[in-house]
């Protein structure tokens, strides 16, 4: 691994009796796009806050660019661009003013920030909204503005907490495109998400988190290869028949997952298995053969779905 920007060992955060982050280890290399994948309450946001020097750990160590965030909060934050889960923009100010005041918080000169604002508006495709109050923007526009705001200081590390939650598909794709450009420019990205497609699209490497612990670590392809099969056959027999058919299907492949509405069958060749099922005259109402995803990895590791 190349130069490590972030290094955590035994990182733990407790709120009273509740352990939000439970002794995790991870490293993030320069220029890497690192993901924290897990359901709500997995400890992703808490980990992000500790990295961002806005939450104190209970135990363990963490170093960001060689510094302890608890002792050097302002110095650490000077290198970060933070996109929180909920947009905390100043809705009474204009789009340009939001970027401007944030730039000033980094001690940047008025002249520099004014020039930077135009560049960021172009990046966020918000040039036409420059003098519009933030309250008038759509959800996707606000999200892009929050990301643009985080870039005003040209951070070494951009941290994005659930960047596309609540956005429609079109807005998500625009956002992914912007983040991809940053990745190409060599910005180190740290992304939390509970969307497996987002993690697959954006992350070079990720950790799967559940109940404060890291369940697995690797690139999306590595994780899928290690914890799942090449293909997945999804069959639906109707909620009443699913239970009845499941034992028969179980004999036909090594791993099946019974979900409330469908049965997932993990195999190398989905079409071939489907033919076998039909040959047994089981006739599912619907069927779908797809490639394995991180959702399947998560299901394997925790026995639960990512979005519950």
């Amino acid at each position: 691994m190349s130069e490590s920007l972030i290094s955590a060992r035994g990182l733990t955060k407790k709120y009273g009796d509740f352990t939000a982050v439970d002794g995790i280890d991870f490293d993030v290399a320069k220029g890497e796009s690192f993901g924290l994948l897990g359901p709500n309450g997995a400890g992703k946001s808490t980990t992000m806050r500790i990295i961002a020097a806005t939450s104190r750990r209970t135990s363990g160590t963490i170093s960001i660019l060689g510094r302890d965030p608890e002792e050097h909060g302002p110095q650490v934050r000077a290198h970060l661009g933070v996109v929180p889960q909920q947009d905390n923009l100043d809705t009474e100010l204009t789009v340009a003013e939001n970027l401007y005041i944030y730039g000033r918080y980094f001690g940047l000169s008025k002249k520099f920030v004014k020039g930077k604002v135009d560049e960021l508006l172009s990046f966020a495709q918000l040039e036409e909204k420059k003098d519009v109050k933030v309250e008038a923007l759509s959800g996707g526009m606000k999200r892009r503005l929050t990301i643009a705001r985080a870039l005003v200081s040209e951070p070494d590390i951009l941290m994005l907490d659930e960047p596309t939650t609540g956005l429609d598909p079109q807005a998500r794709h625009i956002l992914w495109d912007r983040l991809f450009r940053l990745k190409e420019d060599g910005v180190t990205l740290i992304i939390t998400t509970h969307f497996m497609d987002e993690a697959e699209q954006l992350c070079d490497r990720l950790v799967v988190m559940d109940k404060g612990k890291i369940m697995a670590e690797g690139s999306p392809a590595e994780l899928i290869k290690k914890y799942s099969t090449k293909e997945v056959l999804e069959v639906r027999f109707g909620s009443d028949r699913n239970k009845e058919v499941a034992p028969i299907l179980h004999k036909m492949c090594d791993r099946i997952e019974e979900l409330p509405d469908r049965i997932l069958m993990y195999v190398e060749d989905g079409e071939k298995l489907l033919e076998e099922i039909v040959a047994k005259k089981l006739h599912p109402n619907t069927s779908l053969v797809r490639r394995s995803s991180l959702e399947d990895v998560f299901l394997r590791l925790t026995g639960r779905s990512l979005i519950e």
Partner: protein
Amino acid sequence: MNPGVSVAKIRRNGAFYVAESRIRQMSKWKGIITLVAVGNPLFYLVAIGIGIGILVTENSGTSGTGGVEYIVFIAPALLANTALLGAMDETVFPVMEGFKWRKMFYATNSTPITGPQIALGVFIAALVRVAFSVFLYWIFLIAFGVMTFQDSWFAPIVAMYGGAAFGALMMGIVAGVQKDDYFLTVLGRLVITPLFFFSGTFFPLTNMPIFLQPIGWISPLWHTTELGRYFSYGYEISGLMMLIHFAFLTAMLIAGLKIANIRFTKRLLK
């Protein structure tokens, strides 16, 4: 990181950056702020000068007000009240907004700016608003012939000092408010309004029964008003009382800022 980012510079100027952004936010309300700053003295001076003032003077002369016209007696209290209410507006609402309603302080704190710098920045911006309102009020008082420039030049400064003390205290208190359901109603109706009546505003505090006078003693409005009277028309105060008034306001100012610093830091660090 852009080479222009300097943590040492932010450490020095962070509070001013926050104040700059607060003033920008305030400027969105400049119409209402100016309207209040102009309308308030206008209505009070007309109502009290023409209405209540005449009634008081006709019934009891100037014996109850230390030999000055009622409007002259009450003017320093109005000036102090403007300062205190202005300071309250610019501390209570921004702090509620920053922590709870729009959570903007969390965005500010994700930059190198610290909690105490945010608190100080909000406070500095509040002082700018207080200075604007107080000086405008003072100009009206001079224009209406209630005060003279030569005698009262220090009165707006004293009013501002009272506003600063009260604003600091309010900021410290509000930084600890988690649920705002009743806080603002209780603050407005059970603290601010009674304070106005029990602080020697409309009549000398000594006219109150002794058991009610302690309300005035702990009221920043009373301390500010007493000083304002001294610095506007020569109302007599002993050296000791002068010291007590300034010491009380200074203690409130320091305690308020200290509490705000602690609470801002704690609340931003989850």
